[in-house]
């Protein structure tokens, strides 16, 4: 595993580096690529980003530490984030959050033993109109009438089957929501 010399990322890395007059400005998008590759921002990723941006690894680590969307601990394949801010809380986000943890059998911020899921609560995700809000690997998951535990069980089952099934399911729910929006 590596991001340097990895064909999968080559184009994106070059694009980010070319975007700024200064290599070091590309540090944040490159950290996302490292996180995508390794599942979290690990020391290898930090060393590679430091090399790409011509910075000291300490400074890259410092940036990764400041922003919460970089994970400095190993994460599951799917990173589920439940918003528990005001709007979502009023629509039962706390219960959803706890039930999700219970369902997965993990503590807050923990990862399932099979390495599939990490779940945690987060601050506002800017989707209050669809509360309670949930994000899977930084992509919104929404459903008509709002997410319920039943949806989440379906989601977990789909993910355990394979990624394609999961993406199809999320897309299906999104289409339903969009259709409803158009009708109203």
């Amino acid at each position, binding site marked *: 595993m590596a991001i340097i010399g990895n064909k999968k990322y080559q184009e994106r890395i070059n694009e980010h580096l070319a975007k700024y007059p200064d290599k070091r400005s590309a540090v944040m998008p490159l950290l996302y690529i490292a996180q995508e590759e390794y599942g979290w921002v690990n020391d290898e990723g930090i060393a590679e980003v430091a090399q790409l941006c011509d910075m*000291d690894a*300490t*400074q890259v680590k410092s940036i990764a530490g400041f922003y919460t969307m970089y994970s400095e601990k190993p994460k599951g394949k799917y990173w589920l984030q439940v918003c528990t801010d005001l709007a979502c809380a009023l629509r039962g986000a706390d219960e959803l959050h706890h039930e999700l943890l219970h369902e997965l059998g993990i503590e807050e911020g923990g990862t399932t033993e099979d390495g599939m899921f990490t779940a945690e609560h987060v601050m506002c995700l800017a989707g209050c109109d669809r509360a309670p809000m949930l994000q899977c690997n930084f992509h919104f998951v929404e459903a008509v009438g709002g997410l319920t535990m039943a949806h989440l069980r379906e989601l977990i089952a789909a993910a355990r089957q394979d990624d394609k099934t999961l993406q199809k399911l999320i897309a299906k729910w999104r289409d339903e929501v969009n259709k409803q929006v158009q009708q109203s």
Partner: protein
Amino acid sequence: MAETKLVTITIDGKAYQVPAGSNLVDAAKWHADNDIPVFCYHPKMAPVGMCRMCVVELGMVEKDRATGEVIMENGQPKVRWMPKLQTACTQVATDGMVVRTDTDKVKAGRESVIEFLLTSHPLDCPICDKGGECPLQNLTMAHGNGVSRMNFADKLKLDKHVPLGDLIYLDEERCIQCARCIRFQDEIVGDDVLAFHERGRRLQIITKSDPGFDTYFSGNTTDICPVGALTTADFRFGARPWELTDVPSICPHDAAGTNISLSTRLDRDFGGRAMIKRVMPRQNEAVNEIWISDRTRFVHHFTRSDDRLQSPMVRRGERLSPTVWNEAIPALAEVLKAANGDVAVLAGGGASNEDLWELRQLLKGLGSERLGAWTTHSGAELLLEVGVGKGSNLGTLGKGDAILVVASDLEEEVPMWYLRVKQAQDRGAFLAVANHRPTRLAEIASQTERKVASQTERKPLVGKSVLYEAGKAAHWLNDLANSDPELYNTLKDAQNLVIIAGAEGLDWDGGRALMQAAANLLIAGGHVGKPNNGLMATLPEANGMGLQYLGYTTQNALDIIKNPPSVLITAQCDPLGDDPTAGSWMSKVNTLITLTLFPDDTTQRAAFALPVQSFAERDGTFINGERRVQRFYTAQGPMGDALPLWEIIARLRERLGQGRAKVSAAAVMLELSNHLPSFNGIRYKDLAQVERQYPDVGGKDLYYGGTAYQNKGGLGVQLPTTADNGSAPTTGTVNLPEVKQAKKGELLLIPTVRLYNRSHIMRPSALIANRVAKPFAALNNADAKKLGIKHGDRVEVRFNGGQATVTAQVSDSTPQGVVFVPRYLADTPTPMVITSASVVKVSDAVAVQ
């Protein structure tokens, strides 16, 4: 600062004239004697306004916009106050500025900041190394509430022993996040290996450096840390600051002459004698500001190492046996009398001026003038003529000025100069670095801008790095006007020009040629006889300059080598350990007398081995590379029967009927300066003069700059050059020597210098000994291929007089046809000067050792 415009600012109702643009905290301290409390602000670094401790009420005198006249109100100028408290450290003095530092509002502000900083600060002052000299402790006493409103159970519990490297430990609980250490590494050292991690209450200092945090200046972070968060592995839990007596001293390791304080106490571990517990910087803005290198800080254990020679030894048959001074001195006197004047001295740069004077007088009395300097550098006589002008200060070089560093790896040889040269470039000076191999400073010179991580600005830099053919430093510089007129003119036409010359890859002839070529360039551009212009050399040890002033030269040394005397005295030098070829001429010496700290290779052949005291046990003076005569004081209890070198010789002279022995180093200096006109009649008390220095790290607010010490031991006296005294130096002919060639099938061996090595002085400091590189020889890829050597292989380097088994380091940064062998790394002596050598593979790389 003299030329800057003065402006009027009012502090607590009184008006002061201060330089426009000066930092308000500095201005208040310097001009108004008003100590505005600070934590994050440090006078040597850019302000960041992070800790908020320096809040003041700030206003501006109001002026009529139409007429520009000051508006009066009740007979007083009307002041427009800013609505909130302002951080003084981020303000610069402007005309009409009005500051209040003693109002209730300010007091409340300071109290709140202290309370905030203490919300989770541990109450471990009784076991904290900083306790007793802690800015947080002091400012809490001065400005704090005295009672905590915080719930003890809510206190954060964090790791208290985090090693950032082998040398520096972090206590996460004590850290108040001022970022002084981060900014020091970033702005001053230029190696941003420290940073903050996470945020809010979880903010911590981290490093991802590999190996750990170990720059050559890392110890300074513990001095400027305003709390006990950073401590050194050497001193932590070693003593309490209030038990310590600070004795002014001078770093004995290099030509910078760094001013230090030796913190001592009577210690059980040293038989109840005074013992050095730590080494701290002592402010001397013209020499080292308030910084010291890690070598200066951590290499002091040799002074009380049990390996030291502790009693006079005399050879009886094959063996050296201990004796007492009362027997050794008469025996020595007999030997010297019998020599009939066929006596010579070889002295190293570790001997003080007093030592060198007594030796010189001894020889004079015996009818000899053969005073040899045992050093790698030659041409030092030129430093007396065109050395940097009196009043020079590397800290004031900047835009429009130029510095050339040639034939030296400055970071490894004189780290303090490296730091100051780097900072001069930051201020805008043109930095040229020329060597036959890439060095860290060359890398800095070729950068076009410096990233300062803690600030958004990027400093544009000017400089150039040049690689010349191995060993051809003098050829390169002598021909510079033709080969690179642009660089030549940039240097020549600079407002001020300082040249720092080393001796890497040069023998004594080559070294002298390089010094002459440098002198010619300086003279051509008129860069002599004035401050911030002239020549400096990376003379090894602390008193290389003193050797020259006292008449010890490499020319004489060469004569001693060619015609060995019947009796040779070696004074704090080890020719047999330094140079594998020394044995051939040394064998012609009938009686060898060595004055030494450690039993070394020369001792093994000596008829008499006499133990001398180290710099820490005695008084004396060294002359640094900028010709500053500086005084060091007795700090530590003596080791065994060792005596100051000058005293041994003084007693010997008395025995020989050369007059009564002097009773103090001061008396020796008195005689010395009365006899040598170049010393201008200076006395010990002149060397002890101090004056207030900017920025003021002392004063009422003792720890303004951290724990770096106010200088109470003297700033020293800089000797003028002949050019300073008005005699116009003339350019001389550069006698370019033939560059040494490797024999057929061999490589050109060039000795290099490493800051940390296995010399006798380094070995007893365990912390540093662990950081010494494994013995190696650096080879070029192509040469290695030809010789069938791979990176990491064990190889034997064979040269005239010996061989050394080391590890091969193969890279492209070593020029072809050359093998670099650092001195004092291998177990056996390696060459001191450039020579021809063969490299033979011994065995394959060992995977893990």
